């Protein structure tokens, strides 16, 4: 490239890097600012504009009630266990949907299912619902008569249904889950959070894993079938290791979804299962929420934010390493 073009390119890159990184930098130095420095006109450079102080870090790490470590552990535990469960279940779902072709006909399944659903409709005796139900029944009768041949659930049908679940706004689910949690006494437990995160992330993981595991059986799988392996064994010992990188990438994405998740964590946890996002936004900023706020909380919040960014940074480093490995040709 010509020197002028190169200079301009680098200049643009530097400017854009600053645009992206300046907020992160700001948060980082805020976390080491003293209480007085936060209120004063902005200081950009430690030791030059202000004297750094570790009081914020000390506070969130060691103060008994506002302990970062336990929140971090909660987030990490919930995130990793939910991710593992999600990836395993979604992987098996994709395997099942794409490898086993159902030969059931539409009509044979839909009829009995619909009859089951009719029972509460008839019982409720509501005019509008009955009409809708009757219309639907008529539709299915037509399908039966036309005798549509083909699998009950096609690959695209099943996965579209799964994606549709994700389109549903999560806020709709929060209240029912809260009631469920209270009723079973599982509110504010790690187990419940893990289950919830697994459930809401399975559609995402399925969608991400579909191109990876979804193609028709590879030759290695066929060879393993002939060698006598069961499908479960093929899935875990033959297929998954072969697509390790993609599965790990999917896991990283799901983990970050769990890690950053605020809504469910805020409503469904209180103290013992509290994860990082609601803690940082809620508990840590209580004084700031009131009038006349507390400047020291900005430092605490900044420190917590830095900790919350850590997994993303770690994953990015891993991804870079994995990417460069694939490029260099290691199979």
């Amino acid at each position: 490239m010509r020197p002028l073009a190169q200079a301009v390119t680098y200049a643009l890159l530097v400017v854009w890097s600053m645009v992206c990184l300046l907020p992160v930098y700001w948060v980082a130095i805020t976390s080491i600012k003293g209480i007085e420095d936060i209120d004063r006109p902005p200081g950009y450079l430690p030791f030059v504009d202000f004297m750094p102080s570790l009081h914020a870090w000390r506070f969130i790490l060691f103060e008994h009630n506002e302990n970062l470590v336990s929140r971090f552990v909660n987030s990490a535990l919930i995130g990793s266990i939910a991710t593992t469960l999600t990836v395993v279940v979604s992987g098996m779902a994709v395997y099942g949907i794409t490898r086993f072709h159902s030969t059931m006909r539409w009509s044979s399944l839909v009829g009995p299912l619909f009859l089951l659903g009719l029972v509460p409709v008839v019982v409720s005796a509501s005019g509008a619902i009955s009409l809708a139900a009757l219309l639907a029944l008529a539709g299915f009768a037509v399908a039966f008569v036309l005798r549509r041949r083909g699998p009950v659930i096609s690959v695209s049908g099943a996965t579209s249904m799964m994606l549709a679940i994700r389109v549903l706004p999560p806020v709709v689910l929060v209240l029912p889950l809260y009631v469920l949690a209270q009723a079973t006494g599982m509110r504010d437990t790690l187990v419940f959070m893990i289950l919830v995160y697994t459930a809401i992330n399975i559609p995402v993981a399925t969608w991400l894993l579909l191109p990876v595991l979804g193609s028709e059986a590879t030759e290695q799988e066929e060879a393993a079938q002939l060698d006598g392996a069961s499908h479960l064994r093929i899935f875990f010992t033959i297929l998954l290791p072969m697509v390790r990188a993609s599965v790990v990438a999917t896991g990283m994405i799901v983990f970050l979804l769990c890690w950053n998740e605020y809504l469910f964590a805020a409503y469904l946890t209180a103290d013992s299962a509290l994860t990082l996002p609601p803690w940082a936004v809620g508990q840590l900023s209580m004084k700031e929420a009131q009038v006349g706020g507390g400047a020291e909380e900005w430092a605490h919040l900044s420190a917590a934010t830095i900790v919350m960014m850590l997994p993303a940074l770690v994953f990015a480093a891993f991804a870079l390493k994995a990417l460069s490995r694939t490029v260099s040709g290691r199979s």
Partner: protein
Amino acid sequence: MPAGSPKVPVKFDKVQKYFGPVKVLEQFDLDVAPGEFLVLLGASGSGKTTALRILSGLETATAGRVVIGERDVTNILPKYRDVSMVFQSYALYPHKTVAENIGFPLKVRRVAKAEMDSAIREAAAQVQLGELLDRYPRELSGGQRQRVALARAIIRRPSVFLMDEPLSNLDAKLRGYMRAELKHMQQAFGITTIYVTHDQIEAMTLAHRVAILDKGVLQQLATPAEIYNDPANLFVAQFIGSPPMNIVRGSLEGRHFLTNGARIDSPAGGQMDKAILGVRPEDCAVVAPEDGVLKGVIYTTELIGDHTLVTVEIGDDKLTVKAPKDINGNQGDTVGVALRREHLYVFDATTGQRIR
């Protein structure tokens, strides 16, 4: 080597296979004798790989039965059929070592470790892979990978071997070597083998019998010699043999084949307006125009090395003749072609069937 392991026959009984509206196999009937090396030969799309996969259980037939030994295995899962398969691209497990690849069939059956290790070593020795047991597939050459696939297939001593064009991905020299190895191994083990290929040389050299398929229909099932010397129809006649059999169009009257003003004694009698005379290049000779039963003009000559291929244009047909290497003829010369009467074949031009 299993001295007393039973040899099993294999049977395809009226097998049909449709992929949607596309008919891939049509009324496929085949009886494989115990311990036989049967080659399924055909071009791409002839249904040979589909037939193999139906036998292995990876595909299910739309109609018909498959019988291995005494058992009807039509609806039985692949792993219970007691067959082994070598795939065209070997299908080795990339994340396992050579030893783990070879031992996988035994590991799945929970064979004891000591027994498994000795079986792996024995199988590896039989394919000369002894020193490579700790390598990964990506560190092996094509020939080595193919031998790993072979070892994995033989370790279990199955009832039937299936091979799907296993030599296609090898270079010519290695292919020749592995052909001999395969043939020797099959003779030694005596296991019924079904081998799919599009290469007629492999079919001719390896098979006890060859089954030629075209568009899902079995054309002929016979020994290599019979396929070569006694083809059942035009497709078989032209598929086998390199260069392919020469085709002369004409008509059949009684015991004479009429074409381009020539009158040739025909080995078969009949009355047909459109008939085809077939003769292999090695059964023709380039002679003086007055001595040959056919007369034409030299179209081209190609020196192969130990012989010359002379293409003679006779009317609308071109005949390729295997001539001695030192023949001197030039493009445009008028020559005659003599035919060996015992090696003439007559076919019906409309159906392609051989007239005997």
